């Protein structure tokens, strides 16, 4: 009797502990967001988005950093999405199952867990061979593509694997070739899942600063990049730069910049969740 009572108490305690753990994370996030909003919301206006960087905090804006971030995103999509999807198709549909495919699978999963700064160092090694490209958008996007490629491959593979084999059977039974089946049935059916993975990977890329600093992104860029070989800055680097300034005005700018960055990543994640939910309904 006593021991059941004791067990019930332990049960209750654990439940409370669980609730506290859950809400601790959420609470921290709420406090953080509240603090940032309190600091930065007042600074956030149209001018802040469209103004060039400046030595005077009240006049400085994120225009060039935002443009740099969009450039980096666009170029990273061009580099990593076709490669990632092609690799996923190969790994999921073509390579015979065995030791070699297991080996590749494990290593790609490992790559997805490598710290981002390592990719920066790798990018630096590669681009030190092309001195003209040092600090260019091309170098930055290439480095970030290396970073998100494994994430895209893993997500795309999962999405492709989730397509019911009955759909592929139906295509084959109608006389479709392997490629026709992949192109017209498997990929469209996996589209939502692949998009979810791509967006999550990009939302990670848009928040990265460290690997870009390593490959020569600048903290102060008074112009909007016009081509992929131009110098650039990105939002996280701009924010980091402002935070390290002594004037209080720049700290407020940093808070406003963080709000913009959060809005971008939150809406990307929301889109990813939306696509995932929409996709889940499809095969049921």
């Amino acid at each position, binding site marked *: 009797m006593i021991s059941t009572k004791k067990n019930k108490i332990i049960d209750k305690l654990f439940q409370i502990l669980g609730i506290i753990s859950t809400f601790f994370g959420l609470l921290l996030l709420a406090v953080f967001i509240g603090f940032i909003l309190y600091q930065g919301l007042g600074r956030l206006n149209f001018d802040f988005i469209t103004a060039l960087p400046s030595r005077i905090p009240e006049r400085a804006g994120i225009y060039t950093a935002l443009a740099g971030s969009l450039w980096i995103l666009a170029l990273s999509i061009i580099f990593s999405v076709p490669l990632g999807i092609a690799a996923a198709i190969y790994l999921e549909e073509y390579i015979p199952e065995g030791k070699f495919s297991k080996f590749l699978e494990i290593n790609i999963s490992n790559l997805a867990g490598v710290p981002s700064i390592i990719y920066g160092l790798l990018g630096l090694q590669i681009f030190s061979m092309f001195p003209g490209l040092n600090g260019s958008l091309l170098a930055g996007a290439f480095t970030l593509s290396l970073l998100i490629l494994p994430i895209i491959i893993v997500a795309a593979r999962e999405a492709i694997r989730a397509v019911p084999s009955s759909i592929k059977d*139906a295509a*084959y039974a109608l006389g479709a070739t392997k490629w026709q089946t992949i192109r017209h049935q498997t990929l469209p059916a996996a589209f939502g899942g692949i998009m979810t993975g791509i967006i999550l990977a990009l939302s990670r890329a848009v928040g990265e600063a460290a690997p870009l600093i390593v490959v020569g992104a600048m903290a102060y860029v008074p112009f909007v990049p016009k081509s992929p070989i131009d110098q650039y800055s990105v939002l996280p680097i701009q924010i980091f730069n402002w935070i390290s300034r002594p004037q209080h005005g720049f700290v407020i700018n940093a808070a406003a910049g963080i709000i913009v960055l959060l809005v971008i990543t939150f809406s990307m994640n929301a889109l990813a969740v939306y696509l995932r939910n929409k996709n889940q309904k499809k095969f049921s």
Partner: protein
Amino acid sequence: MTEILSKKKKKKKKNKTSVEKSVKSNFIISTESLNAYYSETQALFDINIQIPKLAVTAFIGPSGCGKSTLLRVFNRMNDYIDGFKTEGKVLVDDTDIYAKNIDTETLRKNVGMVFQKPNPFPKSIYENVAFGLKIQGINDKSFIEHRIEESLKQVALWGEVKDKMKKNAYGLSGGQQQRLCIARTLAVEPSVVLMDEPTSALDPISTGRIEELLFELRNNYSIVIVTHNMQQAARISDKTAFFWLGKIVEYNDTKKIFTNPKNKQTENYISGHFG
């Protein structure tokens, strides 16, 4: 002049021989000493069966006796199973389909298949039926639309779906989905249609409609159907093969199998004593 004449003659001769050939064989599919293996396990033993043209042939037998395996040999869908191999000959339209130079895509256009669970593509009704034509490189829109309408009429689905061709096929009922899958198969004009328990996932009304459909289809297609439903086999088929442990124990006209089976096991099975 004479040259042309002789050419013409030659042509005629050729036509004649091909006609003779088709007259000669009343069978669309025949196997010779066919064995089939999943890796080390043998699933089919010495199968010699001849499937008649323009008729319904039923495969019956207890679970795991190799009915689906043989069906999937006929359109080489077993190629996708690792370790699957066959010995012996399988002739479709007098061509050995396991010969080296055989193009499985062409084979499958000629030998269509309907699966146990309705498996429409997660696309519109239109796209479901059009797919088989499009992958052949056909993109004449009016031709495709004509074929779609014709195939959907053949399965008596046209009236129900003609106003929602752009709607997703997943919105149809199970029975409608299965008829759509049959229409999709018919759209590419195969000469054989293989059906693996096509009504086992359906309600009695949908089942009845598909059985009616089979009566119609028999006039234009050679049909092989696997079924666990004895009444269904008796109702719809012209010939019946009884499978037992990977062998065909008895193969005869359906009437004879169901009224006067020669084999004791067949008799036990169809009267419900085992299986």
